Structure formats: C-alpha cells, structure tokens
C-alpha cells in the first residue's frame, strides 16, 4: 500500500511539473508582447517596465521558468496585470463560490443517478430502464448553457420562482444562497447525472452477471442483502472514480454556467481574465485547477485501493 501511494505520488508530481511547464509556456505563446497587449490603451512606460520586471520577462526563458517554478512552490503566482493584486489571493477568493456550486451539483446528480442507474440495471428492459437511457442520451447531448437558458426562461421568467442569476455567499445567507444556487446547480447536475446514470447502469449490469452474485443468491440471501452487500459494493467501486473525475472537472469552474448565471467562481474569473488579457490571473486559475484535478485523482486512486482489496497486491 505504501509503495503504491509513493508510486502514484511520484507520477502525479511529474505530471504536475509538466502542467506548470504548459501553464508557463502559455504566456510565451501570446503573439507580441503580453504586457503591452494587456495594458492596451492604458500604456505608460513606468507601469510597463514594472510589470515586465515583476513577471520576469526580461530574463532568458529557462531562467524565467525556474523562477516561475520556484515562486509557484512558495505560493507566489505573480500579480494581476490589471489590479496589481497577488494572483494567489485573487484565485483563492473565488474557490468557495465554485466549491459550493460544484458540490451541490454533484449531490443533485447523485440523488438522481444512483436510484435511476441501479433501478434501470435491475429491471433491464423495463420502462424505468428505457426512461433512464433516454435521459442519459439527452444529458450527454444537450449543451449545458442552453439548458441553463431554458431554466432561466421557465423558473425565472414564466414562473418567477427563482432569481435569473447572481450570487449570495452560503455563510452570508443560506436561504438566499440556496435560491441562487438552485438553477446553476440543477443545470450542471442534470448533465452530470446523465453521465453517472449511464455509468452506474453499465457497472451494475456487469456485476449482476458475475458468478459471485449467483453464489449469494444460492445462499438464500434476501434480495436487499444481495444487492447492497454483493452487487453495489462491487459496482460502485468504479463509479467512485467517475464521480471524482466529475467533481474535479467541476472544481475547474463550470466556465459557461458561471458566466451565464453571473456566479463569481473560478470559471467566471477565467472568463474575465481572458476578456481583460490578464494573463497572470489566467495562468494562476488554470494552474490551480489542474493541480486540484491531479490531487483529486490521486486521492481517488488511493481510495480505490482501499475499496478494492485486490489492488494493493497487484
């Protein structure tokens, strides 16, 4: 187990190093001088030189990279071209909004996908099964922002039950947070639910045909025990991975949904940084998201090894 964890840690470390290189090179790909581009009409020589020096752009490339890496390791991701504030704090400020949206959405998705996926596998060919398949095909094909617009049209426009957009912090006013999070979370959650439903269904079907399920039935166990103890326990192991991948990519900020609902998370920050050509903020957001993504995947692999006793000996 320890060896497995160490090996995965090393792998993730190497990939993370690669991620920093990609993020660093993003700035080099900007045609022309990124600082000049960013300043645009607000150009004045003094600010220009200060920003260039602060971003280390007057150094050779290799020096720049190792400098970037060294500072990134100490939590220094540079300063915003626009506000001059440290990128790290700008990005971290946005994390709670994204986190609360992502977790609500995944919770919502699981509430739909678990019963639907399990039922449709256990009653294969039934009405529930067909409904589940139509639902999952719908979910993977529909653009989430379109569903969001339709949601606004219905719940904010026609019915007037929910605000069309905006954000209130959970810590500030839970009730108003809930009314604001409902539409974006349901939008993201429905898409996620359709992916999970399909995956849970196929995972369940695979386990249901296993010999050990027949063994459990041969022991005369109740259906509930067979399903809970023997089927679900095995079927949900791969599902854990997919759920985590979904959470991780939602943590990356659901850019389009955050823009549509004016939700001030990482995704919205990325969008604003792109509009403002605030490259250090863009870099910081992308780096943080990728690092989170790797971290979640690492945790999942370790969790997976705990859930499946066969992994550690392999």
């Amino acid at each position, binding site marked *: 187990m320890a060896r497995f964890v160490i090996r995965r840690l090393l792998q993730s470390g190497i990939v993370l190093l690669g991620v920093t290189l990609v993020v660093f090179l993003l700035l080099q790909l900007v045609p022309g001088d990124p600082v000049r581009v960013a300043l645009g009409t607000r150009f004045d020589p003094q600010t220009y030189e200060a920003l260039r020096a602060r971003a280390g752009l007057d150094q050779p490339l290799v020096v720049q990279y190792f400098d970037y890496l060294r500072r990134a390791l100490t939590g220094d991701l540079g300063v915003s071209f626009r506000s001059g504030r440290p990128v790290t704090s700008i990005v971290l400020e946005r994390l709670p909004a994204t986190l609360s949206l992502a977790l609500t959405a995944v919770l919502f998705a699981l509430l739909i996908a678990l019963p639907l996926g399990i039922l449709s596998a256990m009653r294969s060919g039934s009405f529930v099964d067909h409904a589940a398949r139509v639902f999952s095909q719908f979910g993977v094909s529909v653009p989430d922002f379109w569903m969001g617009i339709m949601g606004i049209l219905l719940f904010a426009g026609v019915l007037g039950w929910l605000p069309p957009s905006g954000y209130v912090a959970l810590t500030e006013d839970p009730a108003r947070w809930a009314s604001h999070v409902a539409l974006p979370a349901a939008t993201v959650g429905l898409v996620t639910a359709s992916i999970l439903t399909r995956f849970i269904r196929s995972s369940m079907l695979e386990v249901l045909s296993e010999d050990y399920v027949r063994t459990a039935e041969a022991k005369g166990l109740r259906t509930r025990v067979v399903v809970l103890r023997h089927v679900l326990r095995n079927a949900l192991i791969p599902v854990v991975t997919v759920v985590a991948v979904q959470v991780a990519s939602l943590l990356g900020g659901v850019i389009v949904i955050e823009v549509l609902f004016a939700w001030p998370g990482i995704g919205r920050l990325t969008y604003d940084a792109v509009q403002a050509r605030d490259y250090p903020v863009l870099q910081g957001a992308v780096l943080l998201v990728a690092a989170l993504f790797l971290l979640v995947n690492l945790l999942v692999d370790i969790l997976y090894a705990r859930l499946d006793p*066969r992994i550690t000996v392999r």
Partner: protein
Amino acid sequence: MSDAAVLAVTDLTVTIGTRRGPARAVAGVDWSVRAGETLALVGESGSGKSMSVLAATGLAPRAARVTGQVRLLGTDFTASSPDRRRRMRGRHVGFVFQDPMTSLNPVLTVGRQVAEAGEEHLGLTRRAARARAVELLDLVGIPSAAQRVDAYPHQFSGGMRQRVVIAMALACEPDLLIADEPTTALDVTTQAQIVELVADLQRRLGTAVVWITHDLGVVAGIADTVAVMYAGRILEQGPVDAVFGQPAHPYTTALLAARPDPAAGGGDLVTIAGAPPSPLALPAGCAFWPRCPVRGDARCEHELPPLRPVSTRHHVRTFYPQHADGRAGHE
C-alpha cells in the same frame, strides 16, 4: 422411493426466451436423489444438466420459463412463494459452482462470506456466525482457519478457494449439496482432493449430493446413480454400476469410449464426431440421431424414443438398446 427423496424433479422443462426465439434448454426430465446418496448428472456442455438443477432450485436466469414439478424435502417447491424458496436455498440446499476464481465476492473476506448464510437462516449473531465460519473453514481443511478467516479470496489458491466455497455451501448443514462441475477449473491433484473432501463430508453429514460433471472418471468413483443428459433430455439413467457396466444407449457407449483411459497409457482421445443440435431447433425424433453410430431407421429421425426400462432401475431412451457385448440389437 420418491417419499424418501430429498429432491425429486418430475417432467421439468426450461425454455429460455432469446432474440432468435425460444430455446428449449431442458425438455422434460425426471430424477431424484435420496439422503446420503449421490446422483451424477452427466453430459456435454449445453446438454441442460446444470440448467435443470438451477431451474429446480429457483436459480434459473430471469429469461427462463420453468414448468414441471419439483419436490424438495416433501414440499412442493415450484408452488412455493419466491420468498419461501429463497429461505430453503442456503438453509436446506448448498451450492458449489464451477469456477472458484469467480464464485467468491472479491471485496468481502472469506469469513464474512461463509458466515452470512448462518446469519440469514439460523439467526446467528455476527460473532457466533464468525466462530462458525472458523469451524467450517477448519472442517474443509483450510490450515490455520482462525487467521485465514479475515483474508480476501484473492489471497487463496484455486483449490483453497473451492474449499471456501464448500464451507459456504455447508454453513447451515444442508440436506442437499449441489456441486456444479466443482473440479473442472482445478488441476488434477486438487481435483482429487476436492472429490475426496466432498465424499468424506457426505459420509459424515449424511448429505444428499447432486454432482454435475462431464468427467465420467469422477462419476464412477463417487456416484450411486447416474443420469446421462443430451440436448435437454435424459438418454439413460440408473445405478452407476448398471449404466457403466452395461451401457444401453449408443451415446453412453460413445462417452465411455471417449474417456481417456490411463490404463491404456492415455493413448488417443476418442471423440464423438459432430455437435449437439441447437436448443433453438430440437429435432422431432432422437436428438442424438445425426451423430449416432447405430442410426437405426427413419423412426429414429422422426419419432422420439420413450425412456424405457432395461432392468428394474435402469432406463434408456432409444429404439436400439445396446447389449452387454456392445452390439446393437432390436428388442
């Protein structure tokens, strides 16, 4: 005789709905097994031998339609509610399946899997069931059972896993043990050990055993009665000495001839040419006719031979029963 039978099956049929139409997996079979006795069901794969047992005990796949009568311990099993049937499985019938590598749940400890039937049927507490699991693992010859009880299936060899499966099947001291090709997936030495183990447990516990196999060598060693199945029907059945000593059906004769004979230096393996008919399209007459070395006349092709006695307990389904000297004759 059927009064004393632990499990008796009468006119059992199993029809499985497939995309290409109904498949007749079992086409009307009768057999029974008494306490302390071993019945061997013999046949090629697809002959319906496993399916007849699974259907009789309510474990047939969902797509299967089962008709006929099954009496388990004197009660009408087919007429019982699904819940009552479930309560009898595990409690009165234990199962050992073919592949010990896949018939154990990989994420539960073997102790847990041995214990759960006792918790379900005997109302044992978790602690008592665990103690019982250690006893059972010890009974089936797993060394240092008290430690191994917390190990996972992947930490056992194939033979040891099959012992675990046997311990599981015996958890509630069932009246009947169903062994569905329990040695096929094991190497030869382990096969002999498992056969020996089951025979020994049967002597000590007085359990009835239905042993499903295509290995005639095993049958001769352990079975009291044997039923030879082909394309969903029984072609010959009776006491093992009678059936093996004086096989009356050309198919039984061919099977016995196809058996690798270690005494003959394990020479050429004789096989029966051709393949069994598809269960989607069973012929009107004798299903073995296309492959039969005797191939009597047009009657074989168009008319199903009845199962008729050749001696008091020895029955055969053919128009041309073989004589002891191996020649075909006409009655």
